[in-house]
């Protein structure tokens, strides 16, 4: 069989023009699919930035909460009850909300405000400048130096501003693992200050962050919280819930899905069409092989092999091109949200295999129907 396959390869490589068109077509399709899906995964990862950055193992929230950005405040007694659940090592409140910042030049800028438990500062960022204890000073805020930092006028230690008509002062400059998706700068302060100064609702507690005594305790905690009428999710579960929200309940997921499908269809049509042309051009040759005595199964193997070879080449080049562009994007645009994960590699691979099998199938149907009698006709 291997001799027949190298014959297939020689026939394929012999037609340079079609060979390049095929590889380029599939490269292009893979490139588009990779770009679309990695943008999507990047966006989703960034939308979960708060879950990742704050880093709690278990999050307690109102059952209707879908994402960390849109919390529903809970009454304070929930915290006391959660603390009394067996298996809970400790539990702290978290404020996660928005504030309107008035800069020194008089401009307004929205910001995400994270209020950390006063006693533990659980979920705190890494400080690049300033001391952790400075957060307890009057009106102190830490600002995250990320892509949105400049929107606050690139404040320094000691810079003052107003937030929701209260005075604020920068006491530290922090860095976090994942930047926010939403284009807002992030400020950290204590839970006390955040809940006193910022909200206008009766309840103020956005989330309760729970440290279970052991991983085995999580299930029990979840049941107890559910009995209370609230929901406890592990960080992974919360991330998934957040992902689902952006995938299925926003226009973003659908649009990117549609773009991915379009690039798939474009790739399929370029590759399918060119491969079919290749087969048509070589119909006589395949007819001659059939007349000489090649079995149908061997012809099928040859066609499959040819389409697999171009597909894998296209896949390789497409992935290279997409990762090159993404690397370039990340280097030039700090906020650029795109990640290549095993998931989107696998997705692109599956799509390429579909393209390859469909193109081969079209060609094979044609080849199996040729009458070797054609070789006797002039």
């Amino acid at each position, binding site marked *: *069989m291997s*001799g*027949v396959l*190298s*014959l297939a390869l*020689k*026939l394929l*490589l*012999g*037609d340079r023009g079609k060979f390049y068109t095929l590889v380029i077509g599939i490269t292009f399709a893979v490139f588009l699919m990779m770009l679309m899906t990695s943008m999507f995964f990047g966006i989703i990862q960034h939308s979960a930035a708060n879950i990742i950055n704050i880093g709690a193992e278990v999050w307690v929230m109102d059952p209707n909460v879908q994402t960390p950005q849109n919390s529903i405040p809970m009454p304070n007694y929930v915290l006391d009850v959660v603390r009394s659940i067996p298996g809970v090592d400790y539990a702290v409140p978290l404020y996660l909300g928005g504030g309107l910042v008035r800069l020194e030049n008089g401009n307004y800028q929205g910001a995400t405000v994270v209020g950390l438990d006063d006693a533990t500062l659980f979920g705190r960022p890494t400080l690049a400048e300033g001391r952790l204890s400075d957060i307890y000073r009057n009106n102190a805020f830490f600002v995250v130096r990320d892509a949105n930092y400049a929107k606050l006028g690139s404040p320094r230690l000691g810079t003052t501003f107003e937030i929701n008509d209260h005075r604020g002062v920068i006491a530290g400059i922090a860095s976090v693992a994942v930047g926010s998706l939403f284009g807002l700068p992030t400020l950290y302060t204590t839970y006390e200050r955040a809940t006193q100064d910022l909200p206008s609702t009766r309840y103020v507690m956005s989330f309760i962050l729970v440290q279970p005594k052991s991983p085995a305790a999580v299930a029990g905690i979840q049941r107890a919280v559910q009995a209370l009428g609230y929901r406890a999710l592990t960080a992974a579960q919360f991330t998934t819930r957040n992902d689902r929200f952006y995938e299925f309940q926003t226009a973003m997921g659908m649009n990117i899905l549609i773009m991915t499908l379009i690039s798939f269809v474009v790739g399929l049509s370029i590759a399918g069409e060119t491969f079919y042309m290749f087969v048509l051009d070589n119909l*006589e*040759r395949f*007819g*001659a*092989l*059939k*007349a*000489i*005595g*090649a*079995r*149908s*199964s*061997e012809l099928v193997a040859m066609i499959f092999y040819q389409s697999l070879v171009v597909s894998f080449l296209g896949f390789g080049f497409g992935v290279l091109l997409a990762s090159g562009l993404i690397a370039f994007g990340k280097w030039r645009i700090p906020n650029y949200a795109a990640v290549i994960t095993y998931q989107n590699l696998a997705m692109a691979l599956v799509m390429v295999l579909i393209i390859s099998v469909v193109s081969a199938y079209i060609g094979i149907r044609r080849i199996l129907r040729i*009458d*070797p*009698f054609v*070789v*006797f*006709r*002039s």
Partner: protein
Amino acid sequence: MILTVDRVTKWFGEEPSRTYALRDVSFAVDHEEMLYIVGPSGSGKTTLLSVISGILRPNDGTVTVEGKDIWNLSVDALADFRLHTLGFVFQDYHLFPRLTTIENVAVPLVLRHVRWREALRKAREVLEVVGLPEKADLPPPRLSGGEQQRVAIARAIVAEPDVLVLDEPTASLDGDTGKRIVGFVKDRILNAHRAIIVVTHDDRIYEYASRIIHMEDGRIVAPAEAVA
């Protein structure tokens, strides 16, 4: 007998516009024979050649090659029969333009699962037999018509088939080249284990025939006549 054709009938299309390309054709070919099938255009020569080489299924009658009723074989067995028993020289050669000459010649061996290296070695030997060793690495389109014809012959004989089938081998060659090639095939390839069947219009090459079958309108019109 190496090959027996018994009351073969082949038609194309459906009544009432059915054309009979072969009507009740019977004959036999012996070892070491070079049998010619001649007749006017449309008389059914190519159709007959296709039926006896297991490429076109007849509507009626049997074809027996080396004791095997070939039209009772399965599709794969029929392909194997063509691969192992027959060698073809098609009228338009049907060489692979993207392969080199030597690779073209090696194709039947590769289909028989001979390793490439071994197949190419054998192909080179056969290219020497047909006098084209220096063209081994050129693609066929760079060769003259007569040279391409010799490549086609090399490909047909490389796997040492028992029956060699040639359709209009001289149709696109000038008279002298045609004669030389057919003479070459008879001298160098025909032997006690083989038979060669040639379809032709070309009376300049009749001198090489062992026997000639005349066809007209799908029938054999005169009993096979022996030549020399």
